[in-house]
């Protein structure tokens, strides 16, 4: 999943509260001791595809949970998209899939660190009919209902997918997607040639989909062994054709999940109340402890943290998806005990890289030298410490099964100098034009200089970050980007990041273009060997890419810390979405 927003944005600083802070701070000494330190990610098991038994509801209860009450989420801005065909941003996916609609499969997280893809609407994660991953069959459970009490059918699932592929004619007479923002994997597999025009003007059902009673079958022209994951994306949410309001569906999706929209004022507030027709016994993933969820928008990240930390009277039922603002991070984690019961922390799935522009830095030895000269400890320090980012040396992060731990180019200034043959080189390092990024850039200038690499720090507009660096003709040598996998497999890491077809439309920011590598990626993508076997191969491929091409410097894994009001219980870090798991929350004293 794309982490489109630049995580470190300019911070505007208000002077309020300074006097009070002065009083509490006093003349303490900073010993640098931060308690036990951040948590490492637990190695991920390959056993991630669940069974039909796992797919039976209800979900494993959350300890101490009680029913009732209301939780209010405070956020900076409204959900990016709620239409399942367009929903592809983490917090929107958490609200959409956690509360409003169900999909063919989903991720069952029992609260003990385990994660399994199980049947959600379907009875199991999918049946590979021919054993070669080309035909997948799903059977819908009984007793599935929408918010108005009508039945959810396989036809509606097929319509939802077909609708996501709808196209329209633009001013130049070309056919363009109507809902381009959503996840495209399943859609591309079903219609690789992009010939289907969508249900509004063409066939009601997309090619490759067949419906028979409560069964839906997908037929692909090459093996797609990761179909159980692909159909867990929001695009397989059921939509009855007569409820399809097209553009307006984004504001008011028709609910098949445990909650429905009662009130929605865009960028102001959204109120969700129970969907009485949702049956917990059909749902292995979701809980519905809380009577209603309210989302209020317009609070700055810094103020969200301040308000939640204060936990004032009347604010005990507040929660947020926004991690603790970096400006207040050291204070919150330094006083964890104060936030007991309303504190959550853990590594997230977003891995960050400093891309080396291979159109400009063409010499492998130079790219290797840059890697050796990168002081990762300093990077973590100047980025705010291990509660902001954890050091990482791999292309595929530890949240992905098949993760291989390697450090191909450990920090070694002498080695870097040797690779450069004693010469000095100049590099242009692009960074967002903010105070924080400016300091990080200054640190990089200092560090790389030790190996004879002169860094020219170039500030660029943070709002146009990806627009600038995605241009293959850009004038920079080093620049940051971040990526989180769509589902726990290398197939959603390597193709979008290192295949030449992802220049410039996807996220291949080092512009690596090696036919041999493209071939390897394609082979793994269409391998019929099954998930467990390919998972490990993806991990190894990452190491090979670093050894042979060194297209990026892997820098870090994002780390998140969340707090909420004291009356909110059930904090859990969803591995799938990598944020506060909304389905497990409850109100302690409703």
């Amino acid at each position: 999943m794309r982490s489109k927003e630049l995580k470190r944005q300019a911070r505007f600083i208000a002077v309020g509260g300074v006097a009070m802070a002065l009083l509490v701070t006093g003349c303490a000494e900073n010993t640098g001791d931060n308690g036990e330190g951040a948590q490492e990610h637990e190695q991920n098991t390959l056993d991630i595809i669940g069974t039909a038994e796992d797919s039976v509801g209800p979900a494993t209860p959350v300890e101490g949970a009680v029913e009732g009450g209301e939780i209010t989420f405070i956020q900076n801005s409204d959900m990016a998209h709620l239409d399942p065909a367009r929903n592809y941003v983490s917090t929107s996916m958490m609200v959409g899939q956690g509360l409003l609609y169900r999909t063919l499969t989903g991720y069952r997280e029992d609260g003990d660190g385990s994660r399994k893809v199980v049947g959600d609407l379907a009875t199991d994660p999918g049946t590979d009919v021919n054993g070669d991953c080309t035909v997948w069959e799903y059977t819908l459970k009984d007793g599935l209902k929408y918010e108005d009490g009508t039945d959810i059918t396989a036809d509606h699932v097929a319509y939802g997918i077909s609708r996501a592929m709808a196209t329209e004619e633009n001013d130049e007479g070309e056919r363009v997607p109507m809902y381009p923002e959503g996840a495209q994997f399943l859609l591309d597999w079903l219609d690789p040639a992009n010939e289907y025009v969508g249900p509004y003007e063409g066939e009601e059902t997309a090619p490759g989909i067949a419906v028979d009673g409560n069964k839906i079958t997908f037929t692909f022209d090459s093996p797609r062994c990761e179909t159980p994951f692909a159909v867990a994306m929001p695009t397989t949410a059921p939509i009855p054709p007569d409820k399809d309001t097209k553009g307006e569906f984004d504001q008011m999706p028709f609910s098949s999940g445990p909650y429905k929209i009662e009130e929605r004022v865009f960028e102001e507030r959204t109120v969700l109340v129970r969907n009485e027709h949702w049956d917990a016994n059909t749902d292995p993933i979701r809980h519905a402890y809380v009577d209603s969820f309210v989302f209020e928008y317009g609070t700055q990240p810094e103020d969200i943290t301040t308000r939640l930390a204060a936990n004032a009277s009347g604010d005990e039922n507040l929660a947020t998806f926004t991690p603790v603002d970096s400006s207040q991070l050291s204070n919150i984690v330094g006083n964890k005990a104060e936030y007991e019961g309303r504190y959550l922390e853990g590594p997230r799935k977003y891995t960050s890289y400093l891309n080396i522009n291979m159109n400009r830095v063409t010499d492998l030895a130079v790219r290797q030298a840059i890697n050796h000269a990168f002081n990762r400890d300093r990077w973590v320090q100047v980025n705010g410490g291990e509660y902001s980012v954890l050091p990482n040396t791999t292309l595929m992060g530890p949240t992905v099964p098949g993760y291989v731990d390697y450090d191909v180019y450990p920090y070694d200034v002498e080695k870097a100098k040797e690779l450069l043959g004693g010469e000095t080189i100049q590099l242009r390092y692009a960074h967002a034009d903010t105070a924080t990024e400016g300091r990080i850039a200054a640190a990089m200038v200092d560090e790389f200089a030790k190996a004879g690499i002169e860094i020219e720090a170039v500030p660029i507009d943070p709002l146009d970050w990806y627009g600038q660096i995605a241009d293959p003709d850009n004038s920079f040598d080093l620049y940051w980007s971040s990526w989180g996998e769509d589902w726990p497999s290398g197939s959603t890491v390597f193709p979008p990041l290192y295949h030449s077809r992802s220049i410039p439309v996807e996220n291949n920011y080092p512009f690596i273009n090696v036919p041999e590598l493209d071939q390897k990626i394609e082979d793994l993508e269409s391998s019929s060997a099954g998930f467990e076997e390919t998972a490990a191969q993806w991990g190894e491929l990452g190491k090979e890419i670093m050894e042979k091409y060194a297209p990026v410097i892997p820098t870090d894994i994002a780390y998140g810390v969340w707090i909420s009001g004291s009356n909110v219980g059930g904090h859990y870090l969803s591995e799938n979405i990598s944020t506060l798991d909304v389905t497990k929350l409850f109100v302690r004293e409703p």
Partner: protein
Amino acid sequence: MSDVDKSSATPHTEDTSGPQTSDMPGVEPVLVADMDEEPTTAGVGKPASEIVGRSPMQLAWLRLKRDRTAKVTGALIVLMLVAAYGAPLWALVYGYDAYDQNPDKLDGSAIPLGVLGGVSSEHWLGVVPGNGQDVLMTLLYGIRTSVSIAIVSAIVVVAIGAVIGAVSGYVGGWVDAVISWFIDVMLSFPFLIFALAIVPIVTNLILGGPGARPLWLSSTMLIVTFMVFFWMNTARLVRGQVLSLREREFVEAARASGAGLGHIVFKQLLPNVWAPILVSFSLMVPALVASEAYLAFLGIGVGEPHPDLGRLVSLAVGGVKAQQVGAWFLMMLSGGTILLLVLTFNMFGDAVRDALNPKSHK
């Protein structure tokens, strides 16, 4: 502030000796008694040589020299400038300059180790969070940046204001109307919003796309920004003075002998309004020091890695809000340095004004 008037027993004579219409001193050289000496009944038993001619500049200088505020603030300014401009030299003795990063003096989250933001025998005032530069050196280099930009800007601003004001006041008619209207427009322009919006865009235009911002460029951008937005008050002041001068005989004489606009403005009018111009300048410097600091606070100033006081305050305030250990000390230091700079320049400016215009009330 100044005690010139109280200490001199003699009534001032310079203002009554000339046909002044305004309260502005020193339009033309006049003869006065030597104010350094006890007033005497002129001429009785004394050689005539005791009556010396003094220019208004000399008179003002004498008044300034006897002003205690001027002496104290002047000394402070000299001290700060010597410390600031000599900073690279002090750095040789001290061991660190403002560009040296000391990440080993910071904890894992880049916050200074130890008390008061890392105060130690090595770093007398601690180190800066993030990259661990020495605070003392950052302050000295910061003063240098700030004062250099302020003084250069003030010279440019006052020069432009004076010329526009003089032309407007002398030519009159529709030119004066247009300039006055333009001044009104510029005064109502939202300076901060404009600066925040335009400076980064113009900088990129000059660089021809994204590029590193050298110190000279960011400084020039600030100077140009101040040039555009700070000339109006000087222009108004000078225009007012010129209005009262333009009908005077020496101007008419110049005009009658066929002098052009340039000659009259630069040779006849401006030399006679140097006093308000000087006052304008001396009060412009602290105003620009403060402006430079708050632009830097908001993120447009000289960028990393160049030391800057406003940016340091911004960093410290962030630290205080986050309740970082010792951040308040950095905030006091950086804020205090700006306060001291602005205050001393302001008080010195006031003293200059008093010296040039003894009739002004304090």
